[in-house]
């Protein structure tokens, strides 16, 4: 959950990038890291295996600027996508303020997308959150691949509450910041509502 610090005049929020294994969650964070100003970002931490598969999480702190005199600090996390890391995924969702679901556009990964989305729903519930109300954005990644499924088909399959949905090619940066902005906006609106 967000942490409002009146002494330092800053607000900290936590965003989690979720999705099936190899869908590009870490790549999203790497692109954001590369393209952000040095003053804006902290260190990108990746707890990964020797083959660069996320083992526990990636973490990137990002300052987006000030709102009403308060510095907004976004803590971006990814989860390990592989099915057997479920215990770790559950832990990372603790205290989350907003979620990005990164779906893999390849036709062959549709079942994995659906399974991961269901898993997100379950794990959010276990942490006391509801996917239907939490700030949430959907990203269709890897649009550049020839095996990518049609967008409207993916939309029908994965979009369930008309959440903002973005096409992306995270390796080239397409759609990455649009996705981040959309979720950050929802989180800030949610703060206003509270």
């Amino acid at each position: 959950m967000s942490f409002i610090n009146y002494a330092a005049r800053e607000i900290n929020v936590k965003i989690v990038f979720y999705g099936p294994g190899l869908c590009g969650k870490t790549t999203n964070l790497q692109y954001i890291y590369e393209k952000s100003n040095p003053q804006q970002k902290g260190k990108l931490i990746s707890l990964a295996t020797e083959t660069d598969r996320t083992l526990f999480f990636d973490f990137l702190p990002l300052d987006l600027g000030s709102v009403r005199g308060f510095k907004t600090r976004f803590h971006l996390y990814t989860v390990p996508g592989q099915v057997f890391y479920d215990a770790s995924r559950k832990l990372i969702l603790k205290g989350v303020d907003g979620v990005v679901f990164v779906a893999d556009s390849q036709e062959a990964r549709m079942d994995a997308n659906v399974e991961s989305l269901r898993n997100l729903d379950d794990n959010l519930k276990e942490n006391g959150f509801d996917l239907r109300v939490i700030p949430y954005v959907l990203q269709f990644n890897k649009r550049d691949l020839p095996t990518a499924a049609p967008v409207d088909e993916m939309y029908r399959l994965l979009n369930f509450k008309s959440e903002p949905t973005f096409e992306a090619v995270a390796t080239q940066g397409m759609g990455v910041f649009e996705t981040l902005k959309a979720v950050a906006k929802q989180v800030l609106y949610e703060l206003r509502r509270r």
Partner: protein
Amino acid sequence: MTVDSSLVMYEEEFEKITLLLNRLRVDASAKIVFLVDKNGQQIAGAGEIDQVDTTSLASLTAGNVAATDGLARLIGEKEFSILFHEGRKDNIHISIVGQRLILVVIFDERSSLGLVRLRVRKASGDVERILSEMEAKAAEIGASDAASPFAEITDEDIDALFSE
């Protein structure tokens, strides 16, 4: 107040906590004393904190505690309330305070595990007391009509963040 609700810290409590951490640092002869919440947000610190990347320290500590909590539950323990990492020069002592905060003490050969444990135990009670004050105050202010700084945010304010 539940563990899931947002944490809000005001100037007064921040000063109290910082004072307390400074005292603990001196009493325990530690290099750094640091308070983090279980979600990885850094709350306050004392000592040579400009020597380390405190944001990363906070998130990794929280990850470490979360993983250890998971391990504890797997074997039927409620939690492991203390973690200790011993290095060649520096050591890290991590303890859980009042369910939702983590107290981190980094020390070298000028101190000892025994001393740190002793001082941390005493300080934990004080931190816990301030934490309850913080929560009570946040609940009180939250219940009154005093607007949060974000109640007045306009769409323009939010758009301005992304105008680059």
